[in-house]
């Protein structure tokens, strides 16, 4: 516990954790919704190296910066990622079709430390934060409770994927159009009340993460959060993606989401 990594992990030779920059074919491109793309690329180097919670940096046309997108799943030679069209870069990306070559950097970042996958764990996801949880929950099989929150029923996605992984999936929507009418953290509280939880893994909007961290702290459950920040390099070189954290000695400093994170112990995050 209390894992605190600063300046990323380092190899024996003094280099940062290695990553690949590669051009790989898009082998499956689905659009579950008009503004959502579910892509699979054939990329053995990244697929084999990827650990749950890591992400890739995808080059989008002539844009100056790559876009960070979580690895949703990695299987054999294939890497799957799912993204919402938010602005110009993801709009460009969503227009790619099967056979197009994508320029991808990864896998990058410190992902989830899953610990003992034979013990029950809860995965809490909100909005676009649900995607990296798939890769992470799989090893837990039926011991994973996956709690997903959405604004409204129309935005629900990936439920079948989580179910296929064996997880017990519960839904919450802000407007009550599906599942629990309310916050996904209500479901988390209920789940914690219902039985032992050894670990919480969460990804989603900041308020959700903050509430999740508070619940975890209160109940003394180890909790890891996957954070977002605007990035330039995505590898730890530019120091662009700062996140304030608390060091073991109580002092505060800025860590970096791309190399120290995106996953942080909830207890070190300074909100």
């Amino acid at each position: 516990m209390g894992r605190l990594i600063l300046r990323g992990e380092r190899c024996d030779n003094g280099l940062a954790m290695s990553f690949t920059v590669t051009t790989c074919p898009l082998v499956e491109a689905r659009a579950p919704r008009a503004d959502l793309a579910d892509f699979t690329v054939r990329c053995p180097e990244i697929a084999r190296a990827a650990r749950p919670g890591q992400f890739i940096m995808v080059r989008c046309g002539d844009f100056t910066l790559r876009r960070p997108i979580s690895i949703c799943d990695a299987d054999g030679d294939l890497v799957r990622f799912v993204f919402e069209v938010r602005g110009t870069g993801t709009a460009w990306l969503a227009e790619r079709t099967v056979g197009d070559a994508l320029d991808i950097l990864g896998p990058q970042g410190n992902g989830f430390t899953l610990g003992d996958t034979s013990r029950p764990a809860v995965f809490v996801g909100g909005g676009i934060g649900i995607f990296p949880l798939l890769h992470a929950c799989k090893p837990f099989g039926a011991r994973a409770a996956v709690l997903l929150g959405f604004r409204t029923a129309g935005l629900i996605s990936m439920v079948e994927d989580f179910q296929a992984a064996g997880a017990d999936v519960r839904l919450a929507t802000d407007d009550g159009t599906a599942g629990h009418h309310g916050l996904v953290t209500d479901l988390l509280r209920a789940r914690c009340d219902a039985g032992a939880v050894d670990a919480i893994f969460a990804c989603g909007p900041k308020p959700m993460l903050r509430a999740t961290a508070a619940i975890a702290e209160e109940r003394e459950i180890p909790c890891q959060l996957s954070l977002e920040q605007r990035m330039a390099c995505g590898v730890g070189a530019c120091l662009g993606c700062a996140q304030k954290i608390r060091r073991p000695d109580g002092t505060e400093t800025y860590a970096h989401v791309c190399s120290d994170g995106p996953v942080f112990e909830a207890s070190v995050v300074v909100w």
Partner: protein
Amino acid sequence: MMMTTPNLTVNIAGVTLANPVVTASGTFGFGREYGTLYPLSELGAIAVKGLTLKERPGNAPPRVAETPAGMLNSVGLQNPGVEAFIREELPWLKAQGAVVIANIAGNTIEDYCAMAERLSDTAVDLIELNISCPNVKAGGVAFGTSCASVAAITAAVRGACRKPLIVKLSPNVTDIAEIAVSAVDHGADALSLINTLLGMRIDIATRRPVLANNVGGLSGPAVRPIAVRMVWQVRGRVSVPIIGMGGVATWEDAVEMLLAGANAVAVGTALYADPFASVKITRGLREYLERHGMADVQELVGAVQAH
């Protein structure tokens, strides 16, 4: 026909670079990340992240924002401090065979001098003076924005420094050539330009500046025409070596910068789209020289024929 390999080496104030492609300070960390992709010795030199006397946490996030053909950053000089650099980064960097440019920043002339003096006793190859920082004793106006303060800081650091001294110019000035002359007249062995242009982006959804620092430095291809113009203007007035930077992304951009008058180029923002940009530029330059039967890359320097 005999083909000899063209000479790519560059001499910057007595230090030989294997090729004229340097990484721009602050864009390449201390080399540990991109060093996983290629040997750092393949670079002409590495200008490390801007150093300050003491550790600096840097600015609150968000620190970066994309702009048309460019980006803004307001990292705020997050760095472990000059001592930690000397202890933890420099030996490793030198072991990789890199030529190391220590970029230094401060808020008082005394800070700069103390760092220059300290670094003079190390394996650092060159010292680069980042004068885009606010001078706290002069009400926060950047050192690099008046000839008088450029003269003062350059002369002071020159006195404290036993390494070749590069002065890195800020483009946020009315007359860059005049500033350059001031720096050279007061002891700069070489110049590098341009640092970033001050810019701002506002998120119209939140009505807040995208950067927590409100403003940040603009870099990338968007600024290249400004950088080329400034290098050309400065080359018209000084004869010391110039490291040209600002939006260099391809070997063609590097040739343009050399023609304008730079002896070497630095690559920063372009690495984020293509981490191999630097080494590709070196390869492109070599092939260009071969194609044109040129013996030495320095034949390009300042070779633009103005109208």
